């Protein structure tokens, strides 16, 4: 279960606060997955008590967008901590889907990859299994297939430690790179922080989703949770 709250001493109207939290959640807590299971109790709440002496912020205030952005970045930090603590996890994975036709498709595809048990076990095993990533993209529950063009799709691992080459291309314009540098792939997959980059090439929208690997320990922890 995900529970959380954000509190601030700013004065913010209830409707502006709800708008901020909803927007922040859609770009943070609603973009994480440890195991693909949705709880009966997930709740994020926000309180603003107005202890700071300044004008009340509503949707039309000059500062509304700035505060909303800061709340969103704040929520992303919190959401990422939850993923980093994923039960039994050893890796923190950013799935970055870009150049989709629309945000909704980018998010559905990113979530599909993030929830794939086989992708997550491959990441745990440090196996550059691009086939599983492509498979998860292919079965993503899209309304239609307009964001997918099998001649435009690119899939890469991206280094998170500033090492070069930064990007290891697994699929280029729909063509699997059968002679990928396995040594470099092993270097990238040995890192604690990983990034999977999917460039759909069909639009300009993007979504980041955060997930983790799936390990033996996840089963150990959850095999007897009630006792």
């Amino acid at each position, binding site marked *: 279960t995900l529970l959380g709250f*954000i509190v601030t001493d700013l004065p913010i109207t209830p409707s502006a606060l709800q708008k901020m939290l909803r927007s922040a959640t859609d770009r943070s807590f609603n973009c994480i997955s440890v195991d693909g299971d*949705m709880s*009966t109790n997930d709740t994020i709440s926000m309180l603003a008590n107005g*202890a700071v002496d300044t004008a009340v912020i509503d949707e039309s205030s000059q500062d509304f967008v700035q505060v909303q952005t800061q709340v969103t970045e704040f929520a992303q930090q919190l959401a990422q901590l939850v993923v980093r603590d994923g039960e039994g*996890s050893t890796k923190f994975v950013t799935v970055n889907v870009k150049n989709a036709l629309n945000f909704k498709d980018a998010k559905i595809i990113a979530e599909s990859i993030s929830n794939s048990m086989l992708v997550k076990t491959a990441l745990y095993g440090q196996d550059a299994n691009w086939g599983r990533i492509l498979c998860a993209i292919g079965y993503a529950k899209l309304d239609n297939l307009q964001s997918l063009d099998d001649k435009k799709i690119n899939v890469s691992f991206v280094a998170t430690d500033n090492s070069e080459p930064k990007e290891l291309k697994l699929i280029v314009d729909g063509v699997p790179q059968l002679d990928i540098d396995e040594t470099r792939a092993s270097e990238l997959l040995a890192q604690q922080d990983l990034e999977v980059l999917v460039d759909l090439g069909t639009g300009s929208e993007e979504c980041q989703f955060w997930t983790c690997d799936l390990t033996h*320990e996840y089963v150990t*922890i959850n095999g007897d949770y009630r006792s």
Partner: protein
Amino acid sequence: QKASKHVDKYALYVPKSGVFPKGFKVATQATGVKKNGNLDLGIIRNVNTSRPSSAAAVFTTNKFKAAPVLVSKEVLEVTGGENVDAIVVNSGCANAVTGEVGLKDAREIAGVANQKLGKQNATLVMSTGVIGQRLSMDKIVPALSQQFETNAFKDDFESWLNLARAISTTDTFPKLISSSFKLTNGTEYTLTGIAKGAGMICPNMA
């Protein structure tokens, strides 16, 4: 969590200090709901009286919403998010799939806090832990009352960190972040965030 122990996540992600918003205080207690005796009840309280507070929330879209979700939604609907001054969280028992008795228990917890605050509909409630078990009200209610009666609320770093600990379940580290920011007019304000979660995580809240 053997795998997690490969990296010292506690050292990496738990802060050693923080800045916290004015006018909030927190309290925690180990009520005995968690079998290991760890903290399992947390309360955050607004003590600022210069202006009415505002509240907002997003909730699970799971069809089978737990009792505290339904009760907190009611509070926000009734109040429109105005004058909500407390959040009470218990861990160890989710009070989920508990039917009418679960709703009654969640309302009773909110009611105890409301009574202590001297206000109606001023408390949100949250629960996390095992599904399908009834809350141990004999442990939670006296502990909750005691926190108010002994004025156990504090605003120091360790108290905030304990609040993050109190809401944890299988988490290997408490999740607390805080930062100060400035508005365009130079006024400084603070955000503090606390979260818990390690498994059953793929939220879609609205």
